[in-house]
């Protein structure tokens, strides 16, 4: 098990290009283990690009290419010998809109363990129950595990997606604006959940919602036009931003 405050993901001189256009310019940052780190900034600033570069989700975009390193546990995820399947098992992801698969609640959560080769039914059952409990969804769905995942509400679906990500036993969870499609109550549930999860998991969240970042994050990155402008402890940045741009963003003058 990893200790608190240990850098688990290190971004070093990282550039991301969409064709000719640089979406990320020379980003350097260490994400600490078992903390919540928020990436904020105006639309198109590169915050999602950075997040999606960590688990190489942007590999799916044909024109995207990178320079520099992103180390996970000291190992560059862009090395040619990296097994994406294994890496993504350790670095999970939750998306903006809930994305349940067209199957039962149970099968959604069991999907990950099954594709990673787990066949033992009892073990799968245990994982499903634990993951749903960790995602604070168990009590609401324990009597209807075999119903379609589409029967759940939006907020429940998003917690199901978190449970599904937890089921493969990751260390890091990346969240790309996970509450932007949810109502305020469902949003609050997710925020409470993320704070609980940060006891055991490293959480990196991209959010448009500055108040949310301030409420839940320990550390913060402010990005602007592909560059990392300012980073550090959330409380410090909010109290006294060092950079003029950060200050303007925090005051709602840009964004």
């Amino acid at each position, binding site marked *: 098990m990893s200790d608190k405050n240990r850098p688990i993901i290190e971004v070093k001189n990282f550039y991301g290009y969409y064709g000719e256009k640089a979406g990320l310019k020379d980003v350097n940052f260490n994400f600490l283990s078992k903390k919540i780190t928020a990436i904020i900034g105006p639309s198109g600033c590169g915050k999602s690009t950075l997040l999606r570069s960590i688990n190489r*989700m942007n590999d799916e975009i044909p024109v995207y290419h990178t320079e520099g390193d992103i180390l996970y546990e000291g190992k560059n995820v862009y090395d040619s010998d990296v097994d994406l399947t294994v*890496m993504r098992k350790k670095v999970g992801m939750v998306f903006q809109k809930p994305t349940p698969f067209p199957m039962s609640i149970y099968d959604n959560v069991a999907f990950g363990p099954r594709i990673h080769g787990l066949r033992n039914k009892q073990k799968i059952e245990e994982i499903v129950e634990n993951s749903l409990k960790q995602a604070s969804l168990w009590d609401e769905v324990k009597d209807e595990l075999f119903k379609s995942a589409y029967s759940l509400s939006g907020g429940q679906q998003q917690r199901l997606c978190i449970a*599904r990500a937890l089921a493969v036993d990751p260390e890091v969870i990346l969240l790309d604006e996970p509450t932007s499609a949810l109502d305020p109550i469902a949003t609050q549930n997710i925020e409470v959940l993320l704070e609980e999860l940060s006891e055991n998991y490293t959480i990196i969240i991209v959010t448009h919602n500055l108040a949310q970042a301030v409420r839940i994050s320990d550390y913060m990155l402010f990005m602007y036009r592909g560059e990392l402008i300012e980073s550090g402890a959330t409380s410090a940045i909010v109290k006294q931003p060092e950079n003029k741009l950060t200050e303007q963003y925090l005051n709602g003058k840009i964004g």
Partner: protein
Amino acid sequence: MKLKKDLVISNIFRIVSYFIFTIVLMIFVLTIGNGISYFSFDFFTKAPMDGMTAGGILPAILGSLSVLALSLLFSIPIGMFTGIYLAEYGGRSAMAQLIMTAITSLAGVPSVVFGLFGLSLFCITFGFRTSLIAGSLTLSIMTLPVIASTVNEALKAIPRTVRESAYALGAKKTEVIFKVLIPYARSRILTAILIGGGRVIGETAPILLTGAIFFSTALPNSIMDPVMTLPSHIYYISMAYGENAQWMAKGTSAFLMIFVLIIYGIAFKVRRKMNER
């Protein structure tokens, strides 16, 4: 002033659509109404007798069902794989574009041309003669574009994030396709197969040229034997038989119509269920 114009136009639309509905309704009512009185136990359980003036259409029903089953056996897997290739592997490559163009043009080819093609390729070149297999293969080529393009469109319509969620869990491409994307698109794919099937069972020209025989008393012994089918039976009776055999054509038409209606009914139901999601 403007309001009055709107009223006129909306009335024109209403009249035109009622008119079309009436025509469709008439086709169904007249065909089914004219034929349903000939339905009897014998009609569904016996072969035609006494020069098509008595008996039933059992061999034609069984023949049509075997043509349907056999042609779907070819067109479903080939159509699915083509659609999957186009959506997931082909990308914007020249090959994928070429296949896409081929599929689109295939969908516009008149059925009699398919018939002639099947006749020259399957019956003559492959030496299948007029047979169940030649007819089924010809019809499967007709349904192929429907299935392939539906699978392609259905897969492409799946939100990117559903795909990415599966990849983010560490799934491999084949797992994403077969465990997430195909189940996600299954209603649309099933609808396309049913509509393709409805077309296969009613197609006349291709089966006349490649697989149909005008009379048989039983099911073919092998896929190399010719078959009786519902549409070809209707055609032969109305073209070549006298007044006292016409009742059988009417009864067969009614049965074919009801059969196709049921298939389409299931297709619409599947589609409605999909829309509820």
